């Protein structure tokens, strides 16, 4: 059981205990999935000198950075990072900050109801990808989505990864090398800006998890997704509303705004999930500007 990790989180952040325990009462299987995640990432942790305690530190650092960003957002009315370039300099190009932050984010898939719901939609989407599919992940970060895509899409799938950050690409490769070394030969990593990325072939499935809120031009990213999807191909996006974080740049204030961009990009929504970070009535969520996680499966309109 991942009790060493959880006890360390609860000791440093007592409010997290209430949130996480309530989540596990509702979704007990998520605790088993956290344990599985730790097993999968264990070789990477060992290779990079991380223990369960240092992983708890990564998670708490991320949660505290999010808390400080939320206080800033409530006080100033906007996110702390002013644009993509400053977020890039602050987080993505700093290997230590990036690695810890990304690991914290990966862990949140099994600790936060909202992220878990989006992650489940992602797994549904990957499970439906046809055998031998060409898959692209945009912004691979902690590597968990890539790992799942390679596991669920089967050995015939070819996967490309495109990212603007060397640190992110290095981390994903490090995770894959230890967690699923046999799949490494099927993955091509490219450092590029997705809005001008020109691959030789189109894709059956494009993953863009937790990217749109990190860029100045989310519409440009969605248009590129449309441009690079094969006819009948599908995309997966996840993002969030009212969700300040150290590296979040683009502020969606309602999920409606995300859907407008999806529509403008020539995409249509097949399935979606929308989950607030706290279980409260809609009026309270709006009044307190509570963050809402949003994910959808898309295809060309």
């Amino acid at each position, binding site marked *: 059981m991942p009790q060493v990790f959880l006890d360390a989180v609860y000791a440093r*952040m*007592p*409010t997290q*205990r209430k*949130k996480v325990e309530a989540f596990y009462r509702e979704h007990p299987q998520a605790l088993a999935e956290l344990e599985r995640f730790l097993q999968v990432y264990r070789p990477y942790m060992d290779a990079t000198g991380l223990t369960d305690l240092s992983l708890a530190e990564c998670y708490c650092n991320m949660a*505290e950075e999010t808390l*400080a960003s939320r206080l800033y957002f409530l*006080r100033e009315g906007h996110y702390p990072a002013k644009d993509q370039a400053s977020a890039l300099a602050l987080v993505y190009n700093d290997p230590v900050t990036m690695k810890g932050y990304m690991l914290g984010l990966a862990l949140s898939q099994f600790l936060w109801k909202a992220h878990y719901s989006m992650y489940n939609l992602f797994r549904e989407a990957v499970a439906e990808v046809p055998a031998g599919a060409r898959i692209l992940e945009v912004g691979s970060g902690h590597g968990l989505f890539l790992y799942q895509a390679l596991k669920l899409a089967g050995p015939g799938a070819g996967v490309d990864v495109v990212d603007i950050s060397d640190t992110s690409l290095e981390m994903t490769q490090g995770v894959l090398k230890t967690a699923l070394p046999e799949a490494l030969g099927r993955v091509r990593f490219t450092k590029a800006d997705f809005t001008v990325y020109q691959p030789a072939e189109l894709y059956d499935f494009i993953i863009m998890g937790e990217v749109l809120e990190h860029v100045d031009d989310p519409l440009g990213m969605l248009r590129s997704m449309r441009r690079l999807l094969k006819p009948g191909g599908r995309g997966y996006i996840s993002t969030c509303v009212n969700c300040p974080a150290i590296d979040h740049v683009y502020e969606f204030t309602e999920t409606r705004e995300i859907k407008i961009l999806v529509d403008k990009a020539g995409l249509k929504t097949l399935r979606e999930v929308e989950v607030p970070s706290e279980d*409260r009535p809609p009026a309270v969520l709006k009044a307190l500007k509570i963050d809402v996680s949003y994910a959808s499966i898309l295809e060309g309109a």
Partner: protein
Amino acid sequence: MDQTRLQKVFRDIFDEPALVLRRDMTAADVDAWDSLSHIALLAAVEKEFGVRFNLADVKGLKNVGDLMDVLEKKGA
């Protein structure tokens, strides 16, 4: 740092008129102190004491004593 003022903020936010602050008090001791009310608490403390909490301030803020120490450091 005026503990009475801090206590009033806690009583208001958690709607517990009889709450008495202790340095070792944590979210485990107050039913309504959860991740959402924690944000409301810190925002209300900022307002009451005229301070702004940054990342260094909220790092490792696990009990009332830690919060008092941060306020002391900020000269509140």
